[in-house]
């Protein structure tokens, strides 16, 4: 399969040019990143080599990269699904906290269940809590026209602080750390590679991406969601219920975001820890934007971000370049994607030459 076909596959219903813009944005950001490294007097080549090595250089490095990728796939998918319905879910962060907490709580409270049932039930508990947390702003928008951005942002605070309260008081484990008790072994997501943090959460993430693709492009449910996102009034005259789809898309989005917290808690920490997320929910917005709101694009972007972050740790240790550089690169990528006109004009000039 040629690269062009793959790109065409990602873009299926968008213009191929959009995909090029994403790729070009990444390239441009890396070039500027290299220039910055050069400016501070280090070797860009060395820094990037170390970074690449840190991200993919050994089995455990790859495992670390993939571990970082998992939550970003989920939050990226969450934002993408909402966006396909024309909605901006800024609330993935709150939704993933809810999901994480309630999956752990389910695992702790339903420990009497047979071993093979406990893990799925715990995951389900997390998904449902996220769907409710995401569904509320959807429902409010559908019924009263409240803006989902405002409501989801506010619900982030509520979600993060409610779980914080719960883990600091009613469900706090012995000791000085704000965390719950450790979950039963049966509820832990099995490790894919022993002695690493990489759990079966990766498989769940890939399945979720496939499921989102299938839902959006192969079913009538997804068709309705996309139709509402593309043109509400046309969808309406085709007999599509706008309100229902807005609520539904936000609930699905919330469920996906929740899985980011669920897989972290059940797969990495094996408990709920206060304030565990370094902002996966917000990075998910960037992942969705760069991934063009397409599941495959989301997976690739999440992998890129995961690799950048893991590689940066090693770069920070080995070279004089701080790992903050990666944040700069990520920021630049988003800037270029968000301002596609810049890229377009550059591409155009190159074409005309």
């Amino acid at each position, binding site marked *: 399969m040629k690269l062009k076909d793959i790109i065409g596959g990602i873009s299926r219903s*968008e213009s191929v040019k959009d995909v090029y813009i994403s790729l070009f944005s990444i390239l441009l950001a890396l070039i500027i990143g290299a220039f910055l490294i050069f400016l501070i007097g280090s070797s860009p080549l060395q820094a990037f080599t170390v970074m690449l090595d840190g991200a993919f250089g050994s089995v455990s490095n790859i495992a670390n990269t993939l571990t970082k990728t998992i939550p970003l796939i989920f939050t990226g998918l969450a934002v993408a699904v909402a966006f396909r319905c024309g909605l901006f879910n800024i609330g993935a962060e709150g939704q993933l906290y809810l999901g994480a907490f309630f999956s752990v709580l389910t695992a702790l409270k339903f420990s009497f269940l047979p071993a093979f049932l406990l893990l799925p039930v715990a995951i389900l508990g997390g998904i449902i809590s996220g769907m409710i947390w995401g569904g509320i702003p959807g429902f409010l928008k559908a019924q009263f026209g409240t803006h989902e951005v405002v409501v989801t942002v506010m619900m982030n605070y509520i979600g993060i602080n409610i779980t914080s309260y719960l883990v600091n008081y009613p469900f706090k484990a012995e000791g000085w750390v704000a965390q719950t008790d450790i979950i039963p072994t049966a509820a832990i997501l099995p490790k894919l590679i022993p002695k690493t943090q990489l759990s079966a959460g990766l498989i769940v993430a890939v399945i979720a991406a496939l499921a989102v693709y299938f839902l959006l492009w192969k079913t*009538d449910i997804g068709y309705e969601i996309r139709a509402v996102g593309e043109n509400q009034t046309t*969808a309406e005259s*085709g007999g599509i219920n706008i309100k229902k789809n807005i609520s539904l898309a936000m609930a699905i989005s919330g469920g996906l975001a929740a899985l980011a917290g669920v897989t972290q808690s059940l797969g990495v920490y094996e408990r709920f820890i206060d304030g565990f997320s370094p902002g996966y929910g917000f990075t998910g917005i960037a992942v969705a934007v760069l991934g063009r709101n397409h599941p495959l694009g989301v997976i690739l972007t999440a992998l890129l971000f995961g690799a950048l972050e893991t590689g940066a740790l090693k770069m920070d240790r080995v070279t004089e370049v701080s790992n903050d550089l990666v944040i700069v690169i990520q920021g630049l990528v988003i800037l270029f994607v968000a301002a596609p006109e810049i890229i377009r004009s550059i591409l155009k000039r190159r074409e005309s030459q």
Partner: protein
Amino acid sequence: MPLAIEMKNITKKFPGVTANDKVNFNVEKGEIHSLLGENGAGKTTLMNVLFGLYKPEDGEIFLEGEKVNIESPKQALKKGLGMVHQHFMLINRMTVLENIILGMSNELSLNKKEHRRSINELAEKYDFAINIDEKIENLSVGMKQRVEILKTLYRGAEIIIFDEPTAVLTPGEVEELYNILNMLREQGKTVIFITHKLNETMEIADRITVLRNGKKVSTEKKENTNTNKLAQLMVGREVDFEVDIKEKEPGNEILKIRNLELLADRPETIDLSLHQGEIVGIAGVEGNGQLELEEMIMGLRKVIDGHISLDNKEITDKSTKERKKMRIAYIPSDRHNRAVFKNFTIKENILLGYHYKSPFCKNHIIQEEKLKEHSEKIISDYNVKTPNSEQLLKNLSGGNQQKVVLGREVSQKPEFVLAAQPTRGLDIGAIEYIHNLLLDLREDNKGILLISADLNEVIKLSDRIAVLYEGKIMGFKDKKDFTRNEIGMLMAGEMVENEA
């Protein structure tokens, strides 16, 4: 006395249409001149040429006898031309005063006091009872229009163009507008009044220029003409009443509308019926309840009062989905916002409305093969110019987009077809195609309700015609019992005395 405006041989072409064809247009100083014509006759184009918004292919413009070359509205303003648009160009959150002086000052500081004094003076001179510190959002439509007028006057306009100024006003406000226009004339200003309403023209204008199909038909003095004559000039005679449409005995009643209130601010209601094998045309100037009728039939707008039934079943409170299940084909008047998804493929556009149903969907899974087959069939049956059904809809021309919509709606074997402005914006070839398609559907015993602002289209296709004016049906009878003039008069809100 030199003419205030003289436009000579103005020709303005758009792709596919000649909007103004060698138009000569003269306005005397200090008169109210009405520019009369149907939708699309070229009135607004001509004024946009005058105002510097369009550059004509040919022709010359003289102001006060002097040849001018106006290239932008800003230049037009400088030369003493002002325009009051149909859609107001005002900022709601700002006050009247702020709106009037917006963009006028080139200095860093704004001498509000000075502006306030002179604007108040001007408002008094023309008897505008207006509080210039009120925010626009708190004003009535009529008041907003006054602000627009004040704005042009304050900028020193000597000639003021009004684009369909009464379209948005209540009858009381129309009277007040007439007073203002007369006052403007007394003060020596020149007024151009764009309209398609005969009664208004006869009420207010000194002279009247009639445009039809981009050409000037005639300029008349009010004393020498009457609404009847003007109607004749306005609608012309190009399309014959007797088109070779086969006589056909209509079948059972398919659509029935009883006491339906179209416009919320008017108590009038309409009654309408449609039979199988019949085309009923709704004639009328747009904005008289057509959109409301269309959306109420489809369940896209809440019915205020009245009943709609389809095939003897009341559908007034049914959802759009339920109605579509009763085999309605719907060609929306607003193609972009009601009919198509521009960034979806042709295939996905064809799926709309049938996406949950067999054979295109089984157990929630979309049947790609079936859909593709069906889409390719529509593309070939309806002559859609595209390589395949995977193309994005936005890559098609307007006519081909409309064919996709028609194909989608008609291929599902409807019993009732609601076609609203089905040929708007299309080229002649596509129009012919769609007209023939509607006639074939009639032949096939379907009931068709045609809502169109294009009078020729309504006359050409319909068996019966209803004329809509301000939410009311002015007349509803067989086409052969109407004269063209009569329809024109009814469209303009004139009651016609029975000649028989």
